[in-house]
């Protein structure tokens, strides 16, 4: 009868744990040795405490985080961080659950990471979103006050997202607007790519630092370039091969979607380089739909999906081949032979003329 050792299947050895950490580091673009360091930090009991607040949103960002595999959400919330408060994932409910929030804040004051998902309504005194009997803006202000870092995940938390779309009935804003004066890491996207969150959180967990940010609070490692620059269909754009309509021959052959309203030229994100949840091609353009600019404030939910955008960065990157790559080949042997022939002809001509300087009589071979 086969014998299964249940205890061994769940117990994590140090070696396996370092593996998990290294895979996580690799997935989010941290150096390989960061995995080791991550494991050491966790072994010292320095797992960062994370508080995750939900407001006006669809929970899509959490859903996409749940589908990450390296590290899986189980490893993430149990081994790498200490996810102490998350409404979707909590086993507890009601007063018991709300008490966790208070105790976590008290125990980790000034050290915990606050992740916010969803926009915050400010209109009419913020009455449009209550959680646990408290207005969104009040909880947020209270929790953010003692947080070591505030991360806004998704477009809603970053700049308002879909709840802020015109006419914005609730006066929804992003975290950075709701928390005046507090630095906020914004990870826009609808949903945000979970690896951008993991990268940010794991860097903070390992090194205690936050990634370099742009003027809108977005990490440069993920949002420095527009989709268009690294788009796998870019060659079609450069060669003028455009899908003109959904399902036309160009669309079927995977040509550029710019004329179908692709917002890639204006949208800062790394979707083309880091597909969602390790599934190759799992992002809009990879599936044949133009980018809708979900990460970009002022484009997503504001500009019609199929409206054309101006090209923001028209220059091609250095890596493209030149317009006129060298063609034709030359053999060095032929160059040598040609040199010998020309040299021999010139030499023979001179030698022959020198011979003629003496009275003729000596035969000279005709040459050219």
């Amino acid at each position, binding site marked *: 009868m086969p014998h299964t050792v249940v205890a061994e299947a769940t117990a994590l050895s140090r070696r396996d744990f370092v593996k998990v950490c290294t895979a996580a580091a690799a997935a989010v673009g941290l150096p390989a040795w960061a995995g080791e360091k991550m494991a050491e930090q966790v072994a010292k009991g320095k797992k960062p405490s994370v508080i995750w607040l939900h407001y006006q949103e669809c929970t899509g960002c959490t859903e996409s985080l749940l589908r990450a595999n390296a590290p899986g959400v189980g490893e993430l919330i149990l081994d790498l961080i200490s996810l102490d408060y998350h409404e979707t994932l909590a086993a507890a409910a009601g007063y018991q659950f709300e008490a966790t929030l208070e105790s976590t804040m008290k125990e980790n004051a000034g050290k915990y990471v606050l992740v916010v998902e969803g926009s915050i309504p400010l209109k009419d005194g913020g009455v449009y979103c209550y959680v646990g009997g408290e207005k969104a803006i009040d909880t947020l202000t209270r929790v953010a006050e003692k947080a070591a870092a505030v991360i806004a995940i998704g477009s809603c938390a970053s700049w308002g997202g879909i709840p802020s779309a015109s006419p914005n009935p609730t006066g929804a804003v992003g975290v950075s607007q709701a928390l005046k004066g507090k630095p906020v890491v914004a990870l826009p996207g609808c949903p945000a790519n979970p690896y951008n969150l993991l990268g940010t959180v794991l860097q903070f967990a390992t090194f205690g630092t936050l990634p370099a940010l742009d003027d809108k609070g977005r990490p440069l490692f993920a949002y420095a370039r527009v989709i268009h620059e690294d788009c796998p269909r870019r060659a079609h754009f450069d060669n003028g091969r455009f899908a003109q309509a959904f399902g036309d021959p160009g669309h079927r052959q995977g040509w550029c979607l710019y004329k179908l309203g692709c917002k890639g030229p204006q949208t800062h994100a790394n979707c083309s380089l880091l597909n969602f949840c390790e599934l190759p091609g799992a992002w809009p353009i990879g599936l044949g739909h133009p980018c809708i600019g979900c990460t970009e404030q002022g484009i997503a939910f504001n500009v019609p999906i199929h409206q054309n955008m101006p090209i923001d960065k028209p220059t091609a990157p250095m890596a493209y081949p030149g317009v006129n790559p060298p063609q034709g080949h030359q*053999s060095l042997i032929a160059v040598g032979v040609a040199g010998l022939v020309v040299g021999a002809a010139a030499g023979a*001509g001179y030698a022959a*003329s020198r011979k003629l300087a003496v009275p003729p009589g000596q035969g000279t*071979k005709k040459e050219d």
Partner: protein
Amino acid sequence: MTASTRPVGGTILTPAAKALLVLAVLGGAVGLYRLTQGLGATTAMNDGYPWGIWIAFDVAVGTGLASGGYALAFVVFILNRGRYHRLVRPALVTSLLGYAMAGVAVMFDLGRYWSVWRIPTHPGSWNGNSVLLEVALCMMAYTAVVFLELGPAWLEGLSASRRPERAQLAARWLPRAEKALPFLVALGLLLPTMHQSSLGSLMMMAGHKLHPLWHTALLPLHFLFTAFVMGFAVLYFESTFTGAAFKRPLETRLLARLGKYVAGVIIAFVVVRFVGLAVEGKAGLLVGSGLFSFLFWTETVLLLAAAALFLRPQTHLRPDQQLQAALLSMAGAALYRVDTFLVAYNPGNGWSYFPNVPEILFTLGLIATETFLYVLVVRKFPILAGVTPAPGRAVPAGLKQGATT
């Protein structure tokens, strides 16, 4: 007028001739490979450079060097300088062989060489706007005309035959051939004027692909000039080498008088070229075009050096300096033509070209074949003028007098 010419005679297969035949066989092997395997397999030509040295050298330079008959006929029959007549027959043989070899080179360069016979026989298919058609027709016609111009020589050769029917044939046709000669000579002057200038027109159509130092409205005229320069130079070359090879007295005195024509053509060419560039506002390109400025000045310096040598009184006495001057002018004019057809030509799109070894071998084989055939013809037919008195080596006064008459 042909009484003084006679065959040189002697053995055909001298060691030098055998060496030429080896080269010819090597070139022939390359030619066979090209005919069976195609141009792409044999040559370094590509879509950007659909012609290589087989056209730039074998045809453009080859027919230029074959213009000896043309240049000399111009001096003898248009300028009426009958004293040079003794040089006409060898010059015509050079022309015939040069054009025949250029024709062979074109044949091997044509993608569908098996259709070439249609050019003269299907006038209904002609494209009247094609420069290339004019070049093809004129060259074919001129080769035939030069062959007929040499008719008396062939017939005289036959009349010396030991077989009576050959001698009879010659006796019957020789008077007729001599009667037709003025018309043939006139055609022989018209046709090269047309197709040598057309070689220039050909590259004029290359437009911006040709470097502006070479691409001018005067290209057809420049190609006429260089045809004359190379044609004259070849006279010196051929006369001097046959003299040395067959141990015959050199024509130094006669050639000395020709020098002023060569120098005149060279100076006219250089002056017209510079004035043309100045008028077209391209004088600035003479410096600062890098390699192209260098090539332009190399051509110019080679040609001017030759002209200076030709005009020097001492040169009139010395076969070695005559040969040096001729080789310098040949090099200058040939460089001009190769530059125009290949070096200054840039089809764009990153294409580049340098001839590969088989192409060079084929070209060497052609030259060897031409040289071998020349020796064969002058040994068998009355081409070279009979023995003339050896020129005195130190009679400057008389020579100077002669040069000005």
